[in-house]
């Protein structure tokens, strides 16, 4: 499984460590909330809303250099919008693993 990296964040921070810390803190705060919202919507069979959460999460995958996870999220978002929730278990495993790694950044 891919591991998050800070390459993009460091690139746009351009040496601004305060920004780096603040952005990481925002990601650490938003990621579990979006993960929880995703689970809630899946449990309620509100797949369109679940797709909205995947949309938000996939941007974070990009920021953290998680290229293949991003590609999985793009596919899942499309599937959910087509009312297909068959890939969610795999995605949930990724989210939980990533959340631990993100909290340690």
């Amino acid at each position, binding site marked *: 499984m891919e591991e998050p990296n800070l390459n*993009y964040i460091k*690139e*746009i*921070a*351009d040496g*601004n460590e305060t*920004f780096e810390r*603040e*952005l990481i803190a*925002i*990601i650490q*705060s*938003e990621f579990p909330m979006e993960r929880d919202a995703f689970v809630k919507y899946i449990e309620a069979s509100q797949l369109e809303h679940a797709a*909205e959460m995947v*949309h*938000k999460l*996939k*941007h*974070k995958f*990009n*920021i953290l250099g998680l290229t293949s996870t991003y590609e999985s999220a793009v596919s899942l978002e499309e599937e959910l919008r087509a009312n297909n929730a068959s890939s969610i278990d795999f995605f949930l495993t990724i989210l939980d693993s990533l959340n631990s790694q993100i909290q340690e950044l």
Partner: protein
Amino acid sequence: MHSIIVDDEGTSRAILSQLIDNNASLDPPIASFSNAIEAIKFLNKQSVELVFLDIHMPGFSGFDFIDTLQNPPKIILTTSDKGFALDAFEYDCIVDYLVKPITQERFDRAVQKALQVSSPSVQPDQNSQKNDLYVNIDRRLVKINIPDIFLIEAKGDYIHIKTETENHLVHATMKKIEEKLPSNLFLKVHRSYIINTTKIVDIEDNSVLIKQDIIPVSRANRPELMRRLNLL
């Protein structure tokens, strides 16, 4: 160049703020909004030159946002999806389309484009223009704010325009000035008088008090005047 950010994700707003800080042509953003409706309220009160706008927001898309604005400023779209690029071409105010994650180099190019495009925000505000009346006085065109006019009185070949702050004697006919005034505000109550109905103090029989002027109301015009009043 002054800008605002409209994006429902805190992560995106923080990144855009940083990209703006790193760009020499942009001032720090005036405001950041997680909610498009709040941004619209802000833009109704204050003009900005550039908006960094997320397309994909819950309940209210970036395109809905643009459609709501009467006079949209320059807009750089930011999105995680490439699929909206064609839609973006439908809007003259959209100067560029940035796909997240946005690099500084790509961001700077978009800002450069925005600087080169003539500003839609410098077009005259249509609403304020509608309130302007220019009259020729001593070969000068003097601007009068129409809602400030409370009375117009015929004086031979001239009309006397009375406003909250000053009076003007202008060479014009009552018919011509009547055509220039919004009919929802102004009413001809007598062949020699047009009044701003919002400035009425009181009405007595066949006269109306406007500020300190008592103006006759002709029998033919009285029904229309009474129809306009919010009578208890």
